[in-house]
């Protein structure tokens, strides 16, 4: 019996361009985004992100439907305003943060892929940059897309902002609010996810932290605590800042806007410092 063999010749030497660290950061960010929403993964990995997105979008769709079907409701101003809409996305934002951050960080550490990343042109700073670059647009699916859908829906039913100027201002406020919420929740949830290699533990940790933060806030309000102590609650302070972006008095009119902004900034910078500290100590090889 004779045997035949097809020799493909193997890979050729590569003499094309080698793109730099910035390109590597973008590829890691894109890969992380795809993984977090379950792309190229099984159906199970897609269910929860999709469900959360539906939870965030559903009120916008319902409100748009109401605006189309019941224009009188719009006329009497009974529909929630744009800044009010952020109350609808709070649960979805909490859930999505708990899903996304552990997927972004824990999986790489647990699987050992982090070692392969650090053996590539990435370093700790660029790696974390890639993960933040992934987290911000992911959380914007919750913090920006629903209000944009609402704006589109209301505008198409004739209940949108009057004129190009108002629309521009509203869009700026939407992007500003999304940036504030995405940055705050990304920083907090990534910092918590950096504390463990286990996704489930990290997810529970994110939820518990944010719920505890909310409970603390509620307790402080009931105890007539000084308004400035509201800054201790990440959810309260970031949502208060969003209200100020929309030029609303917010839940705590006595709290100066700069204090709300400072409190929110602290909730971004503090967790990011913890995140950096954790990754500065990660052992890759020894």
């Amino acid at each position, binding site marked *: 019996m004779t045997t035949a063999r097809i020799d493909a010749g*193997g890979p050729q030497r590569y003499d094309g361009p080698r793109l730099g660290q910035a390109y590597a950061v973008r590829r890691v960010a894109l890969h992380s985004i795809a993984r977090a929403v379950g792309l190229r993964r099984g159906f199970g990995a897609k269910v929860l992100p999709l469900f959360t997105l539906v939870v965030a979008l559903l009120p916008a769709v319902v409100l748009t439907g109401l605006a189309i079907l019941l224009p009188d409701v719009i006329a009497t101003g009974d529909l929630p305003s744009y800044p009010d809409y952020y109350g609808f996305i709070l649960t979805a934002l909490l859930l999505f943060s708990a899903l996304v951050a552990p997927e972004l960080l824990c999986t790489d550490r647990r699987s050992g892929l982090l070692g392969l990343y*650090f053996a590539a042109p990435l370093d700790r700073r660029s790696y974390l940059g890639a993960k933040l670059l992934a987290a911000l647009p992911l959380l914007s699916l919750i913090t920006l897309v629903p209000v944009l859908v609402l704006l589109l829906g209301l505008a198409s039913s004739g209940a949108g902002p009057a004129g190009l100027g108002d629309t521009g201002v509203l869009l700026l406020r939407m992007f500003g609010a999304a940036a504030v919420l995405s940055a705050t929740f990304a920083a907090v949830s990534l910092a918590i996810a950096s504390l463990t290699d286990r996704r489930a533990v990290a997810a529970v940790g994110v939820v518990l932290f944010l719920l505890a933060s909310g409970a603390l806030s509620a307790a402080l309000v009931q105890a007539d605590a000084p308004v400035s102590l509201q800054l201790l609650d990440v959810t309260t302070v970031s949502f208060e800042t969003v209200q100020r972006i929309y030029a609303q008095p917010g839940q705590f009119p006595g709290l100066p806007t700069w204090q709300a902004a400072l409190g929110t900034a602290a909730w971004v910078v503090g967790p990011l410092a913890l995140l950096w500290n954790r990754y500065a100590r990660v052992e890759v090889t020894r």
Partner: protein
Amino acid sequence: MTAPTLATQVVTADGLAKTWGARTVLAGLDLQVGAGVTGLLGPNGSGKTTLIGMMLGLHAPDRGSLRVLGLDPREAGPLVRARVGYAPQHDALPPEIEALDLVRHLGEVHGLPVRASRQRASDVLWLVGLGEERRRPVGTMSGGQRQRVKLAAALVHDPSLLVLDEPTNGLDPGQRDGVLALVRRLADELAVPVIMSSHLLEEVGRTCDQVIVLSEGRAVLQQGLAELAHEAEESEDRSLLVELDVDAEPLAVRLRERGLDATATARRLVVEGADPAPVVLEAVEQLGLGLRRMQVRTRSLEDVFLELAPEGRT
């Protein structure tokens, strides 16, 4: 198999030192690595993985200098890492990702454009024998296949140096043979210098062109294996292995009386010295013992290793 020359050196270390806490891992390490496959041999904890981490610019040495592909990894870490293919000893593959997706992604992270990375990922997976399996999630693969995926990931960006940290770690003998044969083939066909760390003498002996033995943070041997084998062949340092059908101690006593260095273990006897066979045969005849086997033992790589790195004895 030839020892590397200065012109082909891809890694040079001079007086490299590193301590982790109170433990000295590298204590003035000097080495040169050139073309072919270089085995980095040493017992666990001898500093192999730390040295690899330094080559990749992941750890800074406390003192000494290191150059990889002509660059200092401390100053040009990303540049070095873009040109080095590294396969770690630990499991580093997310289980649910298809092999092709993972290798392609790692090609991109090493700077290859999307299309080139996709093409090369497919090519290297065929090269390592996983062409038909490239769409399988890594978690469904055997240990040997996952090791091949790591090799493919290390090769996808066409590195100028391949660094394999214990590439047969956790594999069964069949898988180990396959991976070692593949490493040899990659070095021969792609002409990529390979550094392969191992604590197993046998696999270094059959795969590598050159061996560097690390012991207590220093390179205690750095030599071409062909040269080492030739030296052993020519060496006066031989011994005679004798196997009897009865306990060998009486024969050992008799040989020691005749001035030979003889050590008995049950029915076996090892006699040191130049050509002791005639004396041994005479003594066996005088004692009326049954001789089952007599064999000249030359100095092996294992003997060299155990002399140079006695802490590797298990």
